[in-house]
């Protein structure tokens, strides 16, 4: 069995995720649609693997998950963290019924001076999603930034 936490790909979750990104493409929800059949089954929207967060133990942005200890201070350290970049590479298709296994590792870290002063601290996180046959399906690279000040508009 591949390393990492389990992320079973479920038809309902694919449908919910597609709706949440405003997408009613039958390829994401209708098993009988000709496009779905041509794709070898229902496929997921391009950013779908984000919802592996539901399966990630101690996911940082779900402080109200049952059984989890709240961090002190309500908002915890979340107030200054922003998502700067997100990149995906799609290596192999997956469909409902497949189980993905996600492994995460830290990538580069760097610092920049913000346009209006204050340091911006960037850090990269790389998640690989392998299926039950240990075939790499998706690589996700996320870049987060911590700001000293709220980002001005």
């Amino acid at each position, binding site marked *: 069995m591949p390393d990492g936490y389990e992320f079973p790909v479920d038809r309902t*979750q694919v449908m*919910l*995720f597609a*709706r*949440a*990104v*405003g*997408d009613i*493409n039958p*390829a*994401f929800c209708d098993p009988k649609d000709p*496009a779905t059949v041509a*794709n070898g089954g229902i*496929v997921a*929207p*391009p*950013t779908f693997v*984000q*919802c*592996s*967060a*539901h399966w*990630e133990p101690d*996911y940082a*942005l*779900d*402080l*109200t998950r049952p059984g989890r200890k709240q961090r002190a201070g*309500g*908002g915890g350290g*979340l*107030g*200054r*963290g*922003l*998502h*700067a*970049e*997100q*990149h*995906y*590479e*799609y290596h192999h*298709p997956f469909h409902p019924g497949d189980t993905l296994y996600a492994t995460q590792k830290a990538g580069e870290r760097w610092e920049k001076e913000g346009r209006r002063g204050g340091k911006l601290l960037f850090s990269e996180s790389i998640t690989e999603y392998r299926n039950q046959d240990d075939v790499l399906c998706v690589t996700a*690279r996320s870049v987060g930034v911590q700001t000293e*000040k*709220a*980002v001005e*508009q």
Partner: protein
Amino acid sequence: MTLKVGDKHEAVVVENIQRTHIVKYAGASGDFNPLHHDDGIAKNLAGYPSVFAHGMLSMGLTGRMLTDWLGAASLQKYGVRFTKQVWPGDTLTAKGEVTDVKQEGGKQLVTVRVVTVNQNGESVVEGEAVAAV
């Protein structure tokens, strides 16, 4: 479908985005960062004028323009930078333009520059996608 450099496609991917859209994305994605649903925390703790949409919601909405245009299972790569926050009330238009086409394995490997703009023409997402069509 045959594509060539310079081909363009655009779509309004959300009109007048509501807090409800943002909350729906939070539920589906599992990202419950309170900056995206709790005005009190967004204003008082973090100093923002209100809640704002997840960057990943903008990227997801933008993805629809790509998959409607290029095919639901066609993407090989998709990456973006988040260039501006999306606030309740914003309307987003996602735009793609073909910048490179290669032949590979009987398919076209198409590189697309992606920009999503708000109702003021300011970009909120900028990036690139590669699709096999």
